[in-house]
Every structure is written in structure tokens, then in C-alpha cells.
């Protein structure tokens, strides 16, 4: 087969899911311009390069925006979190009252099993905001 070896192996979604199942929260970082992206894809969002490397995140971030979903079964938080590496993802901030989650709040990632592995966030230790 004359396939392009740069794209051999499992695709980016599969790679990300497999790592998460092993307890690792990965991001892609461009080898050309250093931009990090999430969710995974084949090219850099910053410069279009297909030369991306996987790196483990620090798990640290801050809430970019937040909403409380009012549900009959109970209210819960949905947030957009800006990771320290520069990528943004949807998630939720747990272990606090949903109404106390606020923009700018410092948070840290946790992997929970619900039952599929899922990245959620909790307030960062020492967050005074």
C-alpha cells in the first residue's frame, strides 16, 4: 500500500480515547508553531500543519464561561475551561455548588468514570477567587 506514513496508526480521536482510558489526559501540540488544540484532529488549528505531537496536560485551567443547567433531576454545571496550555474544552466543575462556579475560577482536571472515562474539573487548591 502506498499510504502516507505520516498518518499511519490509529486516528487522533482513538488515540485520545485510549490514553484517557489509561488515566492520561492528552493534548495535541503543533511541532511547527507550538499551538495546542482540543478536540483532537489531523492538523494544527493555528497554522494548518499536520505535524502534531501528543503531550500530557498539566490539568490546570481557568473557567472561561459557565452555566447552571436547571434540570428536574438536579441542577448541574457546564463550563468552558481554558487549559494552561492554551486549548479550550467543555467540561463541568464538580465538588462545589453549581451556582458558585464563576468565570476566572482556577480549576484542576480529574478523570472520573461515568462509567466511560471523562475529564471533569474541581476548584484548584488555594483558589481564592
Amino acid at each position: 500500500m502506498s499510504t502516507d506514513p505520516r498518518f499511519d496508526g490509529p486516528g487522533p480521536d482513538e488515540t485520545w480515547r485510549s490514553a484517557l482510558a489509561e488515566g492520561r489526559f492528552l493534548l495535541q501540540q503543533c511541532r511547527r508553531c507550538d499551538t495546542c488544540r482540543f478536540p483532537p484532529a489531523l492538523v494544527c488549528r493555528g497554522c494548518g500543519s499536520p505535524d502534531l505531537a501528543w503531550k500530557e496536560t498539566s490539568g490546570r485551567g481557568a473557567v472561561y464561561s459557565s452555566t447552571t443547567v436547571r434540570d428536574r433531576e438536579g441542577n448541574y454545571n457546564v463550563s468552558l475551561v481554558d487549559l494552561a496550555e492554551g486549548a479550550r474544552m467543555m467540561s463541568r466543575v464538580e465538588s462545589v455548588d453549581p451556582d458558585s462556579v464563576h468565570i476566572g475560577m482556577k480549576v484542576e482536571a480529574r478523570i472520573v468514570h461515568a462509567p466511560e472515562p471523562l475529564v471533569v474539573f474541581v476548584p484548584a487548591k488555594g483558589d481564592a477567587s
Partner: protein
Amino acid sequence: MSRSLRGNAAIVGIGNTKRWNAPGRSPFDQLQEAAILALEDCGLGLKDVDGLFCAVSSSGLPVLNVAERLGLTVRHADGTMVGGASFLFHLQSAVSALEHGLCEVALICYGSNQLSAGGRLVSMPDPQPYEAAYKPRFPISSYALAAARHMYEFGTTRENLADVALAARAWANLNPDAFARGPLTREEILSSRMVSDPITRADCCLVTDGGAALVVTRADRARDLAKPPAYVLGTGVAVSHRQIAAMPDLTTTAAVESGRRAYAMAGIGPAEIDHVMVYDAFTITTLLFLEDLGFCPKGEGGAFISSGAIAPRGTLPVNTNGGGLSCNHPGMYGLFTIIEAVEQLRGACGERQIQGAEVALAHANGGVLSSQATAILGSAATL
């Protein structure tokens, strides 16, 4: 630049079923009725249609379904699906196809039975695994996240958003065809059930049925048809993301780009627009698009709206049919922004008519602030 397309095509026929709650009628029933009405409006027939442009929520193959039902033998078609803005993408595509002789009579059409089929947004086979697990209320939570960020950055308030809904209702009360009419107070809106903070039930558009269609031809042909043409002075489209987390800045939409392109083609700016239609899926979208299209500075939308500017007797007539908030919202509302703009340019709006309306801007949104499309229409006096 595409300045040379200015005024080369015109909307010559419009069809609006105004069947906002029509049990027993399918999306394609609504669409076909609207298509027939639009063709009768301008004195053309199905046999004249050789370009078909359509999108529906319930079918991945709308062009095939519609062509079969209407018996069309088209030589050009476009089923671009970018959510509620699709039909303004179609308009730009039709203008181009007409210019290049790919078709002579373009039909743009839509139908929905969202209300009578149960009131839920038809979910398309387009899973978003990186967001779905967190159970955002679709699509409300995405707009709530944008509203929350706008409040944080600019001090926009829930009262500002309520005033969008109040203005829409005031216009709807002048439109006998609007679905939601009657008195409404700011207090009622503010005390409406919270769905996804800061968006309440009253900040959300209606859920209705409906069908709409446009017939578009080149300007030289438009002059001989039954109704005064609404000339397409400018169009612009832009896409920025699929999932809300991938939107670069939640307080600034790609309407900045679609608007800039439409203004450039039309050779005019926001100060020269007499009548504005912006897709109000939620109160926050009216605010964002008025800012992004240059009707007020970024961050000042709240104050602009609460000054009464967009309500009847205000300085800028916006969403004069009552909008998605109070007139109708059959799943994908975009085409209805054009319908009202054409009616205003024809002077056919009765009690809500904007006197001397010569230039109208219609703007539509799709997905979760994902796709943006702007069209600027003008009467013969603007050519």
C-alpha cells in the same frame, strides 16, 4: 472583491405558509406550499424553476426529496446545510449561479413541523462526543455560555436581554400573522423559568411549524414580473466552528466577517440601513448581531437595546415581524428574515410598515453561533 454582483439578482417571489401549528402536515408539505405561493407571487411556474436550493432538519437528501415532490428537472442545485443560516448561504449561491448562467430561476425553500411533531428540535445525525457527555441543554447552553461571557466582559444584564424579548413582542403585536401576541412585561420575562443560566424560557425563541420560499432571478428578468423586485445588493457568509468550545471568542461572532463582506458588495454601511432583521433564536443573539454588524459598538448592545432603539418608534427598526421570539420559529428560521425584509421593501407590512424603507439587512445564524450569513436588499431606487 465581488462588488460587480451588486444588484445583479433580485428576489421576485416570496412564499410564507404562516401555518405555525399545523398537525398532519409534514416538513415537505409546508415546503411545497411555500414554493407554490412564492411562484404564484411572481407569476412564474414550477416548469420555470431550474435551480433548487433547500435544507431541512429531517432529511439528509433534501434536494432529491423536494425535486421529486415538485416534479422539478433542475440543472443546478445546492443543499448546503449549516443550520438556520443555510438559506442565506443558498441566496449567495443562487446569486452566483444566476450570474454565471447555471440557472435562470432559483427556488430557495424550507419547511418544518417542529411544533406539531412534538416541539423538540429534530436532532441531526451529527454527534459531538467531546461535549455531549457534559449534557449541555442543546442548543440553549451554548448560547447561555456566550451570554454569561458577554455579561462578564461588558456588564450586560438580564434586564438588557429581557428588553430584546419585549421589543420583539411589541412588534408582534403589530403583526396579525405573529404566533405570540398580547401583553408581556419585563417582570414576566425576568421571572420566567430559568433553563440554563442566564437564559430563561422567555429568552428562547418560539417553537412552531412553518414553511417559506423565495424565487430569485437575474435583475433583467425581475423587472417584468408581478411584484416590485427586492434587489440583492450584497451577501456575505462566514463559518467559525461547530462546537461552542471551539468558538474563538464567545462575545464576537463571525457575523463581523459576513457583515463586512455584505457591506463591501453593497457599497454601503450600517448607517444606510433602514430596516434590520437579525436571527433571534435567543435574546442574546439579537444583541450580539447588532454589535457585530456595526449598529452599535461592541459591548454597548445592552444599553442600545434598553434605550428602546429597536422597539416600535425607536431609532432602528429590528425584527419587525416579531422575530423568532414572538412571530415564528420553525426549527431553522433564517429564510423568514428575508421574507420580512422583502415585505418591508414592498411596503406591504400594514401597521408595522417602516415608512420609506429602501434598504434592508437580513442576518441569519446557524448551529451554535457557528455559521453566519448577511444579505442586504434594496428597492429599485437603490440601484
